[in-house]
């Protein structure tokens, strides 16, 4: 019997993330408020929303109408000819391409330990933030791609959000973080804003410097569990740390002095991330796995240009 497996914490068992009841409504309210703040007085007078997807762009084709689609894009001509309900699709000009990348590696399950230290896994907040960011980008007229796990989705309107929700709701934490390959995918070559949602512990900030050369803006939300933010609040003395991805173990005597050293190292790591993101004009948000998604999403909406 593998001794490491015998000591394996319960949080390492893969489990699908989930959304709380009424989650979509909370996101919609927050996105609506953010969109209202961004609307200029001129746009209000026009009663239009030029940042809506397709508004003012070149005609790119049609697709079947789905509830929630903007009626201004409804193709009345085809409807009058009895060819069904379609909406016109145009390539965006005022909007830009976003890509929200969710880290669903095994380390995102940290924090879900059952028992006295029970809490939420990092992935739960990550998927909620990812969904909210998608909704936010769509409401601002951007085309949003969602990369989670092994697949990615292209979201062109709010009507595509249920697809994103379905993909995120069943997203398990497992394996290693493979975020870097997303940046090299040809289909995502036109993405101008990358938003990374994860613990940022598997990526080196050096990678971000390469992105900066391509005039890409990279934002990141670092989601860490409570035991990663303040280990001394959760354990003390001799602790055997286990990396969920490599299953490596490291025995450390956690005392106040060691915890201070750790906090210093964590601060340096995040500061490297912040400076690397700043070179892409991006920003870094810090979140705790037990936090609500709304304050972080609202902050992003407030500070995002």
């Amino acid at each position, binding site marked *: 019997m593998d001794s490491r497996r015998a*000591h*394996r*914490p319960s*949080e*390492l068992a893969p489990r699908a993330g989930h959304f709380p009841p009424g989650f979509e409504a909370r996101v919609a309210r927050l996105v609506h408020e953010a969109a209202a703040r961004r609307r200029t007085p001129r746009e209000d007078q026009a009663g239009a929303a030029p940042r809506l997807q397709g508004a003012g762009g070149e005609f790119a084709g049609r697709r079947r109408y789905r509830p929630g689609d903007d009626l201004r894009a409804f193709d009345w001509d085809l409807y009058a000819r009895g060819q069904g309900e379609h909406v016109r699709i145009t390539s965006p000009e005022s909007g830009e391409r976003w890509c929200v990348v969710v880290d669903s590696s095994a*380390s*995102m*399950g*940290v924090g879900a*330990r059952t028992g*006295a*230290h029970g809490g939420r896994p*990092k992935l739960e907040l990550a998927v909620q933030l990812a969904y909210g960011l998608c909704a936010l980008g769509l409401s601002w007229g951007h085309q949003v791609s969602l990369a989670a796990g092994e697949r990615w989705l292209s979201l062109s309107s709010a009507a595509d959000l249920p697809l994103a929700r379905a993909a995120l709701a069943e997203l398990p934490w497992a394996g290693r973080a493979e975020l870097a390959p997303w940046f090299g995918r040809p289909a995502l070559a036109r993405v101008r804003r990358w938003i990374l949602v994860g*613990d940022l*512990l*598997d990526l080196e900030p050096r990678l971000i410097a390469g992105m900066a050369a391509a005039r890409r803006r990279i934002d990141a939300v670092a989601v*860490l*569990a409570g*035991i*990663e933010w303040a*280990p001394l609040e*959760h*354990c*003390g*003395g*001799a*602790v*055997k*740390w*286990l*990396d*969920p*991805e*490599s299953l*490596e*173990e*490291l*025995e*450390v*005597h956690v*005392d*106040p*002095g*060691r915890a*201070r*050293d*750790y906090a210093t*190292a*964590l601060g340096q*790591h995040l500061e490297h991330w912040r400076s690397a993101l700043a070179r892409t004009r991006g920003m870094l948000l810090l979140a705790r796995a037990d936090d609500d998604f709304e304050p972080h999403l609202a902050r992003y909406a407030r500070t995002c240009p």
Partner: protein
Amino acid sequence: MNSLAFQHPWALWALCLLPAVAWLALRGRRGAVHATGTLGLWRRTLETPRTEPPRARRTLPLSAWVALAALVFGIAALAHPTAQAAPRVGPAWTLVVDRSPSMYLPAPTDERSLATLGLASAGAEPRAATRLELAVRAAARMCESAGIPPESRRWRSDGPLGKSEFVGPLPPEDWFTAPTRGLDPLGASPTPFESLDRSDCIWVSDCEPRTAPLFAGRVCSGARTVPGPVAQDGATLRVWNGVGLEDSTVERRVLRVDRGLPEPLRRFAAVWAEARGFAREEVEPEGLDAFLPDRHALDLVGAERGSGPAQAGTFFAPEDRVRFSATGFEIALAREPGPGWEPWGRLEDPEGRRLTVVRRRLGWVEFSFESLAPRTQDAAPFAVALGELLDGAVVAAPEVLPWSERAAVGEACFEFPSEAGIRPGASAGPRGGPRPVPPGGAPRGQSLVSWFAWAAALLALGGLLLASRGR
């Protein structure tokens, strides 16, 4: 100050488990596994110099210490702890010993009395010869049962032989020896038990005192009837046979008078001897050295002259009941300052100086009068005062004890002192039932089992809470 005693001390062997439990706690502490995504940061932290001293690395968590404390209290509770009165420092218990004549009578030998005193099993010990020996032996055993060390036992005697004290495991040997010259029943005063009714006192006697103690413990040897002579009147010896009195004729006892004493004293001695039934012998001072083991009653002798000259003045009998015109000199008191001497009256010269010219002890009265005359024509006060002087010094006839000393006056008793002053049977008077304390066992202290059990439970609860918080 109390000490801790355990009724089941074998349970304390379970304390040997503590090191094993501590080892398991340390081992379990090492095995605590927590997942983290920051393993690289921890590894980097280990590469930096420590800011805390390394000696703190292998300490047990607080919860483990609390759990160990709970274990200690739990094991102690299993051992049935009791709070015992700690041995006191210094003379902690006063054992008031009755040394009246009856205490030198033969001790009871029945098993019931010995069992009451807890001495039945002491078969290897020689049987106590006198009631005093038996009672003292039982009292010493009571001290041992109560944990009173020998240096904390103060033996006290307030009998007719005078007050004396001794600290040690047992009273001195001479206490057990009956006075060879007999005892004076007229001068005997009862042991003041009632004034020593304290929780640190043990009354040691042959019978229960007239008033049952509220606080003091008591040891009674038991007093069965001892037939024997109860009085001698002249040549008649009265012997009590347990049922009635039988008279027998014996030789008269002797009053020896120094020829050098003033005439009034010698004439009074003749009258007093006749009244008391003694034979009178006038002897030279050298003749007083002859030993009369059975017939001696009293010696009246002239004292040796002290350093000062003879003084004329007024002699005051005790309590100033009568006065004499007398001439005398200071008795050389320093020559024989032994025990038992008692000055009697005083001589005041015209300048107010006071001289001791008469003193007495049992069987012996010394005078330093050169002349003596009553100041009034009435000689009665003179005779009464001198009669009291001689009566208080006369030696009792050998083997003669008052009937009250020879009669049966009670059973053996064995009772520990009472701290609270509540004693079963105390209100029943001197014949109240004995306190239900088993003579073979020490007094039980207050049980602390529940306290220790509660402490263990609370500590265990605290340990669980701390463990749940990762402390």
